[in-house]
């Protein structure tokens, strides 16, 4: 599950899933919702990302999706991921399109990602 919460200037997203991989997938769907417009050829890209801690891994993941959208016009629609510690590895799938250049960056403000009471949750503020 992902939902956008009130923030005066930027976009704050709350994420929840049964696993770390699930939260990252929810983040992908939230990002795809914001950029719209992938109806071209199918694309697949391998990703291997590491960070100093779990919240930074969530930021790095979204930063990678943003990079792929800007440089390859990849609008993501799914991924196969494996999280081990503070590393994520896998494949991002989507279509080439004209992603709306709305999201500028992924901030560390109010950033959260981890397990709590049997579920995994995340929160991230995007600069738009």
């Amino acid at each position, binding site marked *: 599950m992902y939902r*956008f919460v*009130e*923030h*005066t*200037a*930027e*976009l704050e997203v709350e994420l929840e899933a049964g696993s770390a991989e699930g939260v990252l997938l929810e983040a992908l769907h939230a990002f795809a919702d914001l950029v*719209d*417009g992938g109806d071209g050829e199918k694309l697949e890209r391998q990703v291997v990302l590491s960070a*100093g801690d779990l919240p*930074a891994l969530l930021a790095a993941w979204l*930063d990678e999706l943003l*990079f792929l959208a*800007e*440089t390859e*016009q990849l609008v993501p629609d799914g991924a196969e991921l494996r999280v081990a510690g503070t590393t994520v590895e896998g494949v991002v799938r989507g279509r080439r*399109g*004209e*992603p*709306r*250049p*709305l999201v*500028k*960056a*992924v*901030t*560390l*403000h*109010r*950033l959260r990602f981890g397990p709590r009471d049997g579920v995994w949750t995340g929160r991230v*503020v995007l*600069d*738009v």
Partner: protein
Amino acid sequence: MSELVRIDETTWELPAREGMRVPARVFADDEILAEIEGDLSLDQLCNVATLPGVVEAAIAMPDIHQGYGFPVGGVAATELPDGVVSPGGVGYDINCGVRLLALPLSEPELGDRREALVHEISRAVPAGAGKHGRRALAPTALDAVLHDGPRALPGVREDDVERTESRGRLEGADPAAVSERARLRGHDQLGTMGSGNHFVELQVVEQLLDEASARTFGLAAGQVTVLVHSGSRGLGHQVCTDYVKLMDAQLARYRIHLPDRQLACAPASSVEGRRYLAAMAAAANFAWANRQAIADGVRRAVAAVLGADVARGTEQVYDVAHNVAKVETHGGRRVCVHRKGATRAFPAGSDEIPAAYRDVGQPVFIPGSMGTASFVLAGEPGALERSFGTTCHGAGRRLSRTAARKRVQGSELRRELEARGIVVRCPSPKGLAEEAPLAYKDVDRVVRVVEQAGLARRVARLTPLGVVKG
């Protein structure tokens, strides 16, 4: 925040407490203050006041609103050499800013060519979605832009460069401090506007509030103008991302404790601090070149619709940055002034101002929101005395994008604007609704506050004829 102490009609202070090294100072009237207290912007301002080396006060302009780390509409000066520099205090869109062009014709002379001109501008200045309209720069050409700003572009007009803050080039820019990832994001984005609150707006000078200064800036009542709002695009966004990450990882090493991770910083004299300032300067130069390329696009559109003579006679009034950190001297101290959603506003006499404007003060442009007014201001001496030579940068948001969409639909807003004679070009109805006038504070009120506070004075009020949004 009940602890706010009223200093005078438009100045409020929150005394230093709980880790704050300096007080927090806010410029606002009662109504604006009530709006400011509706979100977390004052908490964020107090967090800024904890930064190592911060001097005098963490300052908020009347357009302040909640951001990430620093509030938008915030100013913080840190004393050099060892005060910190914080990439988040500049923001991801390094040197986001505004450029005003003045056309050599009046609204009646433009007549029924208004829609054609707005349409042509929308073709000449792409938002940057997909590959449409992008021109890739070779690595050496990109290096030149990062180092020299607009001067590196072919055929650039010297009068444009002269009428740009810092003449479009920050000293100390080092292309080698800009990552490959940032280059990949930005190399084909020059001349693109971006999305969100970025725009190109066709306007008319509706009212002159200081005729002599307006004349000096080349503005007359009824004249047609074009206001460009854009920044450093993906290149600048990535530079900030890279250095926030780097400094976040080094906080323990410098024994810096922060209330918000996004305030990540390092001493300006450290390796990380110096390298960030060099990369930020390069991204700022890229942004000035971007607005130059957009202005070239606008002139091409003007030539196509109104003729080559009108395009040649389209003069740049000025170009100001509102997301940048600069090394300046204030009160005898060398400081790094972070302006995040805030505009430099030096008064008359400053040698930082183009010679032609030196007797009246630096021009400042305050975009309102789509469908409302924008203002041309001039810097006043009070800015140097009270806000490190700074004034506001816009109306300031009061509603989130979600809240704006709940109140108005894009199609409805488009009809409303068109009924008022404003031509709209925006591919996304959702994006249009998110930037609706009701999402912003009253810009007239905001500029009255900065005038009353002695930071800048009103010179001219501009109203929209057409808007192009990404």
